[in-house]
């Protein structure tokens, strides 16, 4: 039976209004199940663990990236499948699995196509999709960067972001890559993701992306892309790795899948632990690089 974990405050409370329509649709598709609501931070982790102990093998998150990340940290068995119904402010994980709306998510859940993704360990925490630090993380703290299709909101975000960028001091970073390659660089922004989330055909591997301090023209393009949650191409360094240790001067906050989760220095590595996601398309099974 499916176990649905709802975050009632996700998407500024939109989950609550969605709930009845959602249950009706799930019932129509024959995948109705047990519903439970989170009540506070890290609740979804405990709920996922408890559900697995009760014998559930399918856990579905109704929420955003933060709730998915909490659930991922509670998955203790490899036979468990995780589904996502995107309903948060940030739904990048769902988008990367090919899921864009709750209606589509229901169809995807019913079809139950599974793809395995390697988990990344950042200190004591696990994550799947994206770790960021530097300006982008700082911006997320200062400005509501959730994708918004309204032009006025987008322009407002952009103006706030531009003002923030003008006062932002570039970090100095040192990264030890796979134990023997040392990288030093001025750092405006850094992100780490599992490259398989961008390209399901590629092997699980850390994809590290550094953004150099942009000039005014590059900053315009950069900000626009960050606010659209889109790709950044200019002034970028990018490489693959199995593990990295990141130090910055001064130490700075780290954001994991949209949630502040510690500070530098931090060790990050691709693990052999895998999570089976219910995805829009089915891709290859887990092939650890190690």
């Amino acid at each position, binding site marked *: 039976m499916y176990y649905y974990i709802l975050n009632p405050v996700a998407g500024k409370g939109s989950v609550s209004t969605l709930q009845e329509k959602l249950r009706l649709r799930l019932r129509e598709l024959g995948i109705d199940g047990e519903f439970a609501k989170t009540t506070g931070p890290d609740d979804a982790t405990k709920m996922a663990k408890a559900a697995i102990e009760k014998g559930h093998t399918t856990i579905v998150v109704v929420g955003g990236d933060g709730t998915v990340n909490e659930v991922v940290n509670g998955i203790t068995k490899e036979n468990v499948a995780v589904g996502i119904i995107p309903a948060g402010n940030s739904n990048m994980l769902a988008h*990367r699995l090919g899921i864009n709306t709750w209606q589509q998510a229901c169809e995807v859940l019913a079809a139950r196509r599974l793809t395995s993704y390697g988990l990344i360990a950042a200190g004591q925490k696990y994550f799947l999709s994206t770790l960021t630090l530097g300006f982008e993380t700082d911006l997320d703290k200062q400005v509501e960067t959730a994708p918004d299709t309204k032009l006025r909101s987008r322009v407002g975000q952009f103006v706030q972001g531009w003002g923030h960028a003008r006062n932002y001091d570039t970090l100095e970073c040192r990264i030890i890559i796979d134990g023997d390659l*040392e990288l030093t660089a001025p750092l405006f922004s850094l992100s780490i*993701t599992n490259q398989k989330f961008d390209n399901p*055909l*590629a092997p699980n*591997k850390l994809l590290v992306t550094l953004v*150099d301090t942009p000039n005014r023209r590059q900053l315009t393009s950069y900000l626009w892309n960050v606010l659209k949650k889109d790709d950044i191409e200019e002034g*970028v360094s990018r490489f693959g790795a199995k593990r990295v240790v990141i130090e910055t001067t001064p130490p700075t906050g780290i954001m994991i899948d949209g949630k502040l989760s510690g500070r530098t220095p931090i060790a990050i590595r691709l693990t052999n632990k895998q999570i089976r996601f219910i995805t829009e398309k089915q891709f290859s099974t887990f092939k650890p690089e190690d």
Partner: protein
Amino acid sequence: MAKKQDVFGVSGTDTVIGSSVKLKGNLSSETDITVDGTLVGNIKSGGHLTIGVNAHITGNLSATSITIAGQVDGNVLAVDSASVMETGQVHGDISCSRLEVGMGGVFVGMSKMKPLKATELEAQAGSDS
């Protein structure tokens, strides 16, 4: 931030090292590598290796094919072609099947050319015609 889908291959993402980055150690990848920063160490690529105009490499390079527009202090080994561009400087030996040095390019060292096999010559002739 993600990289655009159309530059992905099944073996993974290309490596790009920007001009402000300094590396110490050996850099290797099965995919293409572009370096425009400073590196002390060796570089090994299973694809094409590009040494950008701002790059300064102190170490040996090996790849299927190599384009050099920056400075290299070390030996260069290309399975296929090696090109030293107009802004390129190589202080070291170059081993490859095909070598090109652009006008203004600097090459101080020995070249070791591997003769092309008959099948490779035919293929080359076919592509030239």
